[in-house]
């Protein structure tokens, strides 16, 4: 009888440990998805601001047509909802460059820079960018945590058995690293 109990305990331990590791991997993967979802929602919010931004800037700088067309095109692509995660990241990076051009353009129009509408838009955009940046950092932290679990022993055994693969980190472009200076526009 005691032998049976010992055997049951050993079997129990051998079952509980892998279950714990599997659940921990699932938890970490869900955390990555969860943060990506929040970040996606923030990116959408920012895209929603674009028509407002375009119409405000247009009122002062109507002849910057190519710029507006590029922005509108980028927005249409983003809103189409037919992009993979990697494509989304690529579009985000090119959009950041476009925003940089908008900011440089605004410098040439003091009236626009001083307008209430633009200032309000700028603040909202800054807020969203700060939140997106925070979400990216949270995403990278969650991915690092998850990837560590996928690659480290002994969780890598369970990860290999159940097809947990490593995820890509968000790469922050060199020009984006200097983003906190957006406030200098106001």
């Amino acid at each position, binding site marked *: 009888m005691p032998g049976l109990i010992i055997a049951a305990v050993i079997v129990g331990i051998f079952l509980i440990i892998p279950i714990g590791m599997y659940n921990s991997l699932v938890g970490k993967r869900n955390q990555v998805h969860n943060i990506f979802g929040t970040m996606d929602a923030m990116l959408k919010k920012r895209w929603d601001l674009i028509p407002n931004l375009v119409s405000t800037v247009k009122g002062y700088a109507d002849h910057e047509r190519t710029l507006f067309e590029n922005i509108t095109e980028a927005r249409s692509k983003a809103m189409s909802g037919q992009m993979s995660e990697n494509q989304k990241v690529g579009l985000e990076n090119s959009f950041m460059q476009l925003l940089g051009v908008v900011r440089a353009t605004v410098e040439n129009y003091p009236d626009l820079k001083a307008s209430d509408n633009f200032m309000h838009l700028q*603040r909202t955009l800054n*807020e969203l960018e*700060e939140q997106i*940046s925070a*979400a990216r950092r*949270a995403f990278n*932290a*969650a991915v690092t*945590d998850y990837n560590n679990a996928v690659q480290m022993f002994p969780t890598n055994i369970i990860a290999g058995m159940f097809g947990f693969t490593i995820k890509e980190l968000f790469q922050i472009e060199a020009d984006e690293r200097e983003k*906190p200076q957006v406030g200098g526009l106001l």
Partner: protein
Amino acid sequence: MKNYDDFKAFYSDELLAELLELDAVRKRILIQTVIVTAILTPVLTLLIGPALSEHFPTITIISVACLSCVGIAWGASRFLGRHYRADFKRMIIKPLIGFLGPGLSYSPEGSIDLYTFRRAEIFQRYVNEFDGEDLISGTLGKTEIKFSEVKAQYVEENEDSLLNTMLESDDSIFSLLNKRKKTVFKGLFFAAEFHKDFTGQVLVLPDKAEKYFGRFGQMLQSRNALRGELIKMDNAIFEQKFVVYGSDQIQARYVLTPAIMDKILEFEKKTGDSTCLSFKNSMLYIAVPCRRNLFEPAYFKSLVDYVQTFRYFQDLRLMIGIVEEFNLNTRIWTKE
């Protein structure tokens, strides 16, 4: 923020004359204290001595005399210098605060209220005795701030059964003996509006567990359900020095930007490794532990001492400078 050269000029133009005047008062108090102590100590020793000499050896009587001398000197200096202390705060500390932050007001007897202290949720221990002084408050630019010296304590009944049975009485002196005080926090407590709107809380605490127990310490921290979710920050030095708990992973990083983390590290270098910060519902709270009683005049040292006055300036500058250091007046986000 005023620099050291500005202070030098302010010291010689505004403070020096006042310090000289106060130092004369200090010297007078010191002489009076010596006289009072010299008279009262022998009187007290003569009164108590005979009663003690029946049961205790001479060495005990000498010890009692010495203790009486110290006690009388301390009591006399406090009593005789009660106006001196108030005058010092009015004539030196108040102008110093005006010099560093023209929008600030000073209340020597005021303090951060217990509600603000509790709202920060930095300390988990329940505080039931709270006291403070030297409240500085007002608006700097667009930011409302307040800070003061604070002493937060937890008073508990002594559970020593023998003592309880001996002291079973409603007499206040016995009930005092029956209580034990534990200091939860002593130092400067700072509260200010944060420049970003957010809900929830981000707690930045000194990382003792990880420092001493490494990865195991981090594991323990992640199980601290009372503090919230453990947030691993992406600044290695910051992560080494602090442990961060928050109600939301993204919100925590929205508050703790790389720039703010660098500022916290700089601030920590000046204040010591026990500094705690709490960001809660668009407010910033900072607790800087300090054993010294700040902004008090010297009794046994000359007041006309540049280094001493410079220390008051440094302490005040450190706290008032938080607004500038943390860019709390920046309004590039939606907060007006």
